[in-house]
């Protein structure tokens, strides 16, 4: 099995943060499903959402880049997405709603979401709720 080989040279990795709710949710998921991973999806109905899978469920590819860990859960973004959509910061959070696609839910009636800011262009100050602009 192949495994992530790290980011291409010159890639600026986004800073990864999580809300307390996301950390709690990941601990709950860990208790019910064992070790999990997250990978950021793209496009269409469930797109731009963090997908959460049991660690051995999703086959990571050579070009999936580890951008950090939250509550022991590694979070990956595909290299092409990092290149096309530079993120200065990814904030993992939970909201009400169905889990996207085949992702594990973040709890009963909850799903994982992420808020991202961009590093491609000048940034404004962060809003007071702590979400990246």
């Amino acid at each position, binding site marked *: 099995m192949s495994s992530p080989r790290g980011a291409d040279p010159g890639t600026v990795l986004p800073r990864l943060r999580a809300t307390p709710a996301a950390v709690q949710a990941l601990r709950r998921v860990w208790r019910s499903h064992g070790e999990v991973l997250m990978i950021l999806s793209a*496009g269409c109905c469930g797109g731009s959402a963090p997908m959460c899978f049991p660690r051995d469920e999703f086959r990571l590819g050579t070009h999936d880049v580890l951008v950090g860990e939250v509550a022991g859960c590694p979070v990956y973004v595909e290299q092409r997405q990092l290149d096309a959509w530079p993120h200065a910061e990814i904030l993992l959070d939970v909201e009400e709603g169905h889990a996207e696609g085949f992702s594990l839910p973040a709890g009963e009636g909850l799903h994982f979401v992420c808020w991202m800011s*961009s590093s*491609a262009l000048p940034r404004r100050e962060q809003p007071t709720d702590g979400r990246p602009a």
Partner: protein
Amino acid sequence: MSYTAPGRAGSLVTVQDRYDNFIGGKWMPPAQGEYMTNLCPATAKPICEVAKSSPEDVEAALDAAHVAAAEWNHVSQATRAAVLEKIADAIEANAEMLAVAESWENGKPVRETLAADIPLAVDHFRYFAAAARSMEGRLTVIDEHTTAYHFHEPLGVVAQIIPFNFPLLMAAWKIAPALAAGNCTVLKPASPTPWSILKLAEVIEDVVPPGVINIVTGPGAEVGKALATSPRIAKIGFTGETVTGRLMMQYAAENLIPVTLELGGKSPNVFFDDVMAADDDFLDKAVEGLVLYAFNKGEVCTCPSRALIQESIYDEFMARCLDRIAAIKQGNPLDETTMLGPQVSAQQLSKISGYVDIGRAEGAEVLIGGQPAKVGGEFEKGYFYEPTVLKGDNKMRVFQEEIFGPVLAVTTFRDEAEALRIANDTLYGLGAGVWTRDTNRLWRMSHGIQAGRVWVNCYHQYPAGAAFGGYKISGVGRENHQMMLEHYSQTKNVLISTDEKKLGLF
């Protein structure tokens, strides 16, 4: 005129309190006895409950499908075609009812379901009825004593997993070619929109042999996974986003079966200066062509979500477009004059708001809209977002990531070369639009754009017979065309020798 909401007195649509799975031609309660609430996005109130199924239910559906396949895999092409025709007739006879159900569950305006979703679904079944009837094998005369015959054979039982944005039409896109090629199917609808497909099952249950179509509702992580990993399926057809698309390929790899993927898009819609050479019907059509980003609330994989407008006409053309956008009527999806309904779910609304905030933070200019829409009364809590236009740069995230809402990112270009460069500066390659009166230019652009579907001087048309599918990360395979029969068939080669003489090797 406004249709009465499903379940209320005088509505065209009856609603039960809860719906079971459609398995083997019967309504089967979920093995675990669990149900989930299904919301109407216009009111944020429940419509009904549907089965929250588990892997046992998937197994029951596969059992039923395999029992049915023993016969259905071998029926004549004429019989398959006749069943598809009957499905089309049944949908047509219930078109208004299904249009209202679809609109109420998904939020799309009923004018769209009446004009597009349902008639296209009907036509799709008719197209594949014709395709099934006219399927032919091929033969090759290898030499005077040797002939290679090629026959199509059904794959068997297939798994089909569809999205929330066109529940009935996507069901038609998946089911019709599968059945036409002689397969049975187990279909999993999207979690936000399981109900209208069950209404479809009610309409067609008497005309489809039991077990040929099976529908199991429930969460993707359990039901979808149990279905897609089953060694008892011969193919996966999936429409959705990229990571689940990868997961489908991974599951398919485990069982060594084929997979068709329709994934996302960030489609460019390119308007050249000659569009404004005359103030005529064509210009009027081009303006509508830009505003089509709001079709189906922007919840379309091919949403023309990036408008590229030639610099020299930008001010005047955009002014006309903004007037048209300002005239969009938003509200009750069951009102025939409504042009924009609610987003499918609270989470979609949240995602859209988040992206528009990102656009603002990146320096995009909000030309119109830019916030959740206030629709009062019964729709106070509905998931409405204003039709929005952001002017900016193609490097911005709102130009690169799929928002799946009524949000248009607009930018300008100087010349054709720049238009093509911006159009192709995306990870996706599903749809594109080109608007010009110059025939040579439309030819060059439509060939230069890396996308599976390039609409020229039109947009958002989905006739059966026009192949649909993605380049780049937008997917693998094609739908909506008789070539799909190949994707849902095995090829049997029978190689016949009429030579009386041995090879002479042994």
